[in-house]
C-alpha cells in the first residue's frame, strides 16, 4: 500500500487548515517580554486607595466583605483615634485582608464600596510559593500616602508595578431607583497618586446629563 493510499484525499483536506494558518498573522505573544494592552476595566489585583491628602479611604464598613461571593475578604473596623485619624469620620478599616486564592475577580467589592477605597488594577501576576502569601493584608493592599502602590513581590519581568497604578475606579454610577437622569454621574473623589479620574464613556465629570 502506498503512502497516498494510506492517508487518502481526506488527509489533504485535514492539513488544509494547517497550511492555511501558516500564512496568517500570529496571535501568540512572547509573554512576558511582550504584554498586551489590557482593557480599561480589567479586573486585576486590588488596591486600597487614599484621598489626595493621604487619608485612607476605607472606613471599615465591610460592605465589600458582605457582597463578596467568594467570601474572601475579611475586614474589621475600629474607632478612629480623634487626635490622629486614619480616615475621615468615626471609623476606619483596622484589618483588611483578601485571600487571592479564593478571589474570582468579579469586582463586586469595588462596586459595593461607598468610598471607592477598594479598586482593581491591571496587575494579575500574583503567583506565590506559599498559601500564606496569597492572603494580601493591608500592608500590601494599601497605597502609600503619595499613591505609590505596594506589592509583596519585587518588580521583575513578570511584575510591572506600574500596572498597580492603573486602577479603574469604576463604580456604581446609577441611582438606586434607576432614574435615568442619575445615570452617568460618577462620584469619584480624588485619589492620592491618581488624582480625579477622567469620566468614562457615558459619564460626565460635572454630573450633568450626557
Amino acid at each position, binding site marked *: 500500500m502506498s503512502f497516498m493510499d494510506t492517508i487518502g484525499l481526506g488527509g489533504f483536506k485535514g492539513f488544509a487548515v494547517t497550511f492555511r494558518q501558516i500564512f496568517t498573522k500570529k496571535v501568540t505573544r512572547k509573554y512576558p517580554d511582550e504584554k498586551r494592552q489590557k482593557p480599561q476595566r480589567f479586573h486585576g489585583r486590588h488596591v486600597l486607595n487614599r484621598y489626595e491628602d493621604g487619608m485612607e479611604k476605607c472606613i471599615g464598613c465591610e460592605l465589600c466583605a458582605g457582597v463578596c461571593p467568594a467570601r474572601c475578604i475579611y475586614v474589621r*473596623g475600629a474607632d478612629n483615634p480623634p487626635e490622629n485619624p486614619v480616615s475621615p469620620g*468615626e471609623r476606619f478599616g483596622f484589618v483588611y485582608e483578601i485571600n487571592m486564592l479564593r478571589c474570582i475577580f468579579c469586582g463586586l467589592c469595588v462596586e459595593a464600596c*461607598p468610598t471607592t477605597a477598594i479598586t482593581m488594577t491591571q496587575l494579575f501576576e500574583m503567583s506565590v510559593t506559599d498559601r500564606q502569601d496569597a492572603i494580601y493584608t493591608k500592608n500590601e493592599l494599601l497605597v502609600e500616602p503619595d499613591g505609590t502602590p505596594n506589592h509583596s513581590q519585587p518588580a521583575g519581568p513578570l511584575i510591572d508595578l506600574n500596572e498597580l497604578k492603573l486602577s479603574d475606579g469604576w463604580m456604581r454610577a446609577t441611582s*438606586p*431607583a434607576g*432614574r435615568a437622569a442619575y445615570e452617568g454621574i460618577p462620584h469619584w473623589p480624588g485619589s492620592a497618586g491618581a488624582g480625579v479620574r477622567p469620566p468614562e464613556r457615558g459619564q460626565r465629570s460635572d454630573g450633568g446629563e450626557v
Partner: protein
Amino acid sequence: MADTPQPELVTITLNGVDTEVRKGQLLIDAAEQAGTYIPRFCYQNRLKPVGLCRMCLVEVEGPRGTALVPSCTQPCTEGLVVDSENAVVHKAQEGVLEFLLLNHPLDCPVCDKGGECPLQDHTVAYGPGESRFVEEKRHYEKPIEISDLVLLDRERCILCARCTRFCDEISGDSLIEFVDRGNGTQILTFFDEPFASYFSGNTVQICPVGALTAKPYRFRARPWDLEAIESISMVDSVGSKVSVQTSQNQVLRINGVDSDTTNHGWLSDKDRFTLQAIHSEDRLRVPLVRKDGELVEASWGEALELVAERLGSVRGDEVAGLGAARSTNEEAYTFAKFLRSVVVTPHMDAQLDDALSDEFLAATLNRAEINDLETAGTILVWAGDLKEELPVLYLRVRRAATILGATLIVIHPRRTGLSDVADHVFTYRPGEGADTLRRLKAGDGPFAEARQALDSGPVMTIVGRTGGAEDPRLAESVAAFARTLPDAAIMPLARRANVYGALDMGVSADLLPGRVSVRDTEGRTALEDAWGPLPEGRGKHATEILQGLKSGDLKALITLGADPVGNHPQPALAGEAVESAEFVVSLDTLLNATSARADVVLPVAGFGESEGTATNLEGRVQKLNRIIPPPGQARTTWSVLDDLARRMGATLGAHDAETIMKEIASIAPAYAGIDWALLDWGEGRDGVVLPGPDGTQPLQHMPVETSVTATTGRFTLHLGRVLYDNADVVRNSPSLDVLVQPASAAFHPRDLAVLAVQPGDSVRLAGDYGTVELAVRADESLAEGTVYVQANMDNSRALGASLIVQVDAVRGEGS
C-alpha cells in the same frame, strides 16, 4: 399562677379580610398577629404608645369618611374597617420617610445599625426611592459620650422617644430628655449628669436607628457578621432570655430577647457587658499544677492524675465541695454525683452561707412566679436592694407598682431603688428585723396602712437577706408571715445565677437531687438504687466546711466556680481554711482569690461555651446554649469530672450533657419530664416551671429578741450589695470595671456628729471577722446606729459580715 380571663373578641376588617382580634388591642399589634406588618419607629410593645413618628399610619373608615390614623394608638373596636396597603397609605409612608431623611446623615456604612436598621429597611420597603433634598443637612457634633457606656449621635436620631420613654416608664432613671424645639429638637442628658443608668444598654437595643451606640460593641462587627443563639443570662438568677451574638468565635454582643415570663426583653448593663470577661486575657486556658510553690502549666493527664491520687489518698468524708452556683444543672448534677458517689462525702454547699438556707430556697411553699407580679394587689419586698442585686426583677416590680398599680411595700435598712415608687417604705436597723416584723404583723403605728394593704390580695412577697450581716432566719420568719396573707405567693431570693438549680441537683449539705431532704429515707433509698451507697447523714455547710479545713477534720477541698476566700462572710477563716487544707483543686474560668492558692487549677468552659439548663429564682428551667468553643484546652465541667471519676476507678456515665439531663429527669422527682427537646423546640421555649413542694416546710424562725442596743461606738452593719462590685466578672470587663466605686462607710448625719467626723474623713470599722478603714459618707435614709458598707469590694472585703462593728474615727496628722 393566676389564670387569665378569656379576652373579649371583636371583628375588624383588615385590608378587606375579616379578622377576630382582642377588644381594645392596639391595631398595630392586632394586624401583626393577623400577618400584616405595619411599619413603625416609635411604637415598642413594652412601652406606652405615643404616636410620635407617624410611620404606622393606616386608613380607617369613620363616620365622616376615611382618615389616616396612627395604628399604634388606635384600639380595635367592633366593625373597624382598616386599609394598611392602599395608595393613600403608601403616599403617607413615603412622605413620613422623606421627612425623616431630610436631616438624616448618610452614615450607613459607618453606622453600627447599618444592616439591621428599621430606617434602612423601611426606606427600601416603603420609601420614595429618590431624594429631592439637595440642601445641606442639619449638623451636630458627632457622637457625644452621654455615659461611660453609651454614645449619642444626634444627627441620626429620629426623635421617636423610645429611649426617653424607656427611662421614664421602665427603668425610672430619667436622665435623658428632649431639649429645644422644632428643627433643633435633640436628645440630651441634663447638665453635668451623665446617663449613668444600670439599664442604659436597653436604650441602645431599642433605638430604631444608630443614634445610640454602646461603647463595648461599637464598630466591633456588622450585623451580617454575627451568628446568634438564644440563651439565658448567667449574671443573676432571674434567668433573663438573651441572644448571644458572635463573630469569629468571639462573643461581641448580648441583646435581650422578649420573654413574657422573665425579662420582657430588658437586661441590665451587667447582663449585657460582662461578655468582655468571656474573652479576658486572664481566662484559664491550660491546667495548672503547683510546683515549688508556683502554679505552672501542666497537661490534663498530669493534672487529673494528681487530683485523682490526692483525693484517693484521704478518706471520702475528709473531702468537701463548694460551688456550682454558676454552673449549669447538668454540671452541678455531675458535681454532686461525683462528690457523693465517687468521693463519697456528704460535705458540699452551692452557697457560701451568704444568702438563705438551702431548704428554704429549694422548697418554699406557695412559691411565686415572676409573672405573679402582673396580678398582685400588694407586693411586699423585704430583701436586698433589687436594683443592685437583681436589676431585671427590679424592673418587673417597678412595672407592677407604677404601671399596673399594685401597692408596694419596701422594707430594707436604707432607701432602695424601689423606694421612689413604693407606697410604704420602712427602714430599720439590721438586727432589729424581728421587731420590725412583729410591728408589721400587728399594724403598729406607722405600719397600720401597710398592714391593711397586705389584707387585699393577691399578695406577692419577695424575701431575701437584706444584707450580708443580717440573720438569714429573718427571711424565713417573714415568709411564714407572708404565707398567712390572702392568695400568698412567695419568692425567696438568692442572687447567683443557677444557685436554685445547684440546690435542686443536690449540691447541698441538706438536699439530695430533686429537692429530696437527706433525712428522707425513702428518697435516699431511691437514689442509692441509682448511685450506689451514699455517705451517711447530713453534711457540712460552707462555714462548717471552712472550719473543718482549718481544724484539720477535713483535708481536701474542691471548688467549682466558687471563691470562698473572696466571698465568704468570714474572709479570714476562708483564707486560713484554704491555707491549711492539704489539697485544694479548683475548677474555674478565671483565677480568683481561692484558685490562686489552689494546688491544681482546671480550666472549664463558661457562659456560651457549654450547653445545658439552668433553674431561675421562680424554679423555671430554661436552656442555655453553646455558640463558641472554650478557650485553649478548657473543657466542660462534666467531662472533667467524668474523667476524674474514671481515674479514681469509678464511672459517672456522663457522656454528654443531654444524657445527663435525661438521668436527672429520671432521678430528681421535681425534674421528671424535662428534656432538652422540650426546652429547645417544644412548649418549654419560655422555660418550664417546676412543680412546687407540698406538705409542710421546716422554717427556722428568728427569735424576736435579737435586737441590739447601741452602746457608744458600736454600730450595726448593713453590708449591702451594689451592682458593680469587685467581682471577678466585673474586674474582667473593662467597660464595667471603670464604673466600680470603692466602698465607703455611710452613717446617718446625726451619727456623723456623734462620731465627730465629716464626709470624706476616714473611720476604722472593727468587726468579729476583720477590720477595715473606709471613707465616710452621709446617708439620711439609714436608721441611726447603722453603718452601711458596700459588700464585695476590695477595700471592704476584709471586714467580713459581722452584725456589730466598732467604729472609731481615724485622725490623721492634719486633724
